[in-house]
């Protein structure tokens, strides 16, 4: 189970970005998670909550976009989505292929931040 250390890296990245932007807190983190990343979604969601405690991300939500495994099929000469990562074969022609194009992602795509309410206060 390495999801906790991965969640901590995500929180660190988001915190750094939040500080750089001078924002108050992070409300949502958007993550792309490939099926071949070796990271388990449920374990990551569980670890994320723990990793966020006491940080600028406390109470934030983690939105995970799962990325299926895509391979290149030399016989069809095109990209295909694997039906299962237990079988690296083209779903159309059955050719076995080791060429992975997509599916290893572990990528923080974006964060949603809340700005400090200084401007609003100034107007009031």
């Amino acid at each position, binding site marked *: 189970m390495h999801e906790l250390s991965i969640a901590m890296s995500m929180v660190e990245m988001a915190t750094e970005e939040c500080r750089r*932007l001078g924002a108050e807190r992070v409300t949502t983190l958007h993550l792309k998670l490939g099926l071949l990343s*070796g990271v*388990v979604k449920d374990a990551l969601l569980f670890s994320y909550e723990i990793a966020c405690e006491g940080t600028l991300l406390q109470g934030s939500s983690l939105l995970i976009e799962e990325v299926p495994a895509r391979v290149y099929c030399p016989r069809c000469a095109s990209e295909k989505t694997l039906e299962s990562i237990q079988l690296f074969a083209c779903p159309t022609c059955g050719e076995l*292929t*080791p060429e*992975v194009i997509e599916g290893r992602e572990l990528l923080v795509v974006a964060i949603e931040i809340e700005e400090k309410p200084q401007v609003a206060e100034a107007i009031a």
Partner: protein
Amino acid sequence: MSTPRLVEVRQNVLKQNDLLARSLRKRFADSAVLVVSFVSTPGAGKTALLEHTLRSLRETGLQVAALVGDLATDNDADRLARSKAPVRQITTGTVCHLDAAMVENALGDWDLAALDILFIENVGNMVCPSSYDLGENLRIVLLSTTEGEDKPLKYPTIFNTSDVAVITKMDLASVVDFDLEAARTNIQRVRPGMTTLEVSVKTGAGITNYLDLIVSHVKQKVSI
């Protein structure tokens, strides 16, 4: 209340590890040392195979060394040291895998140019090591006959990120009704084209082929 704002980040979570692994790979290339890592479940025979490997390759005159990762104890390092090859232990504490930073720390100022092959034995774990590049040139995944032939289907990611599969404890294959053809088929399903070898450290069967494969990857030292 201010309205949340969406900001694009697009950063790989393992960026730090990947960058470090890249710099290690360059250091290995500059020293012309081949780096081979072993991954498997606990008890698949990594240490036994590595001990045998270190001893046999030393006898052929190659300079070999090993880094060995474990959660606790330095028992494995002690076992490997019997081969007389230099061995360093990485005790990870509670961490279930090696990462590039642990490898870098353990290497310290080790003169890699004096070596032909450096072996890295990962912590026994079929899941987490697959996410971490250690800068190695060759990743060998071990599958022992006693684990069953369906392991590749249960852990496709570790097979998919490895370069060579070695089936160990072949001397026990008949005792546990191990279906070698099924194991080979399962490996090809999750990593088409993967080189697969069978060995028994106990009887020595298949070891020559396996050592030949490793030696075939040893880089030619550039003489200055």
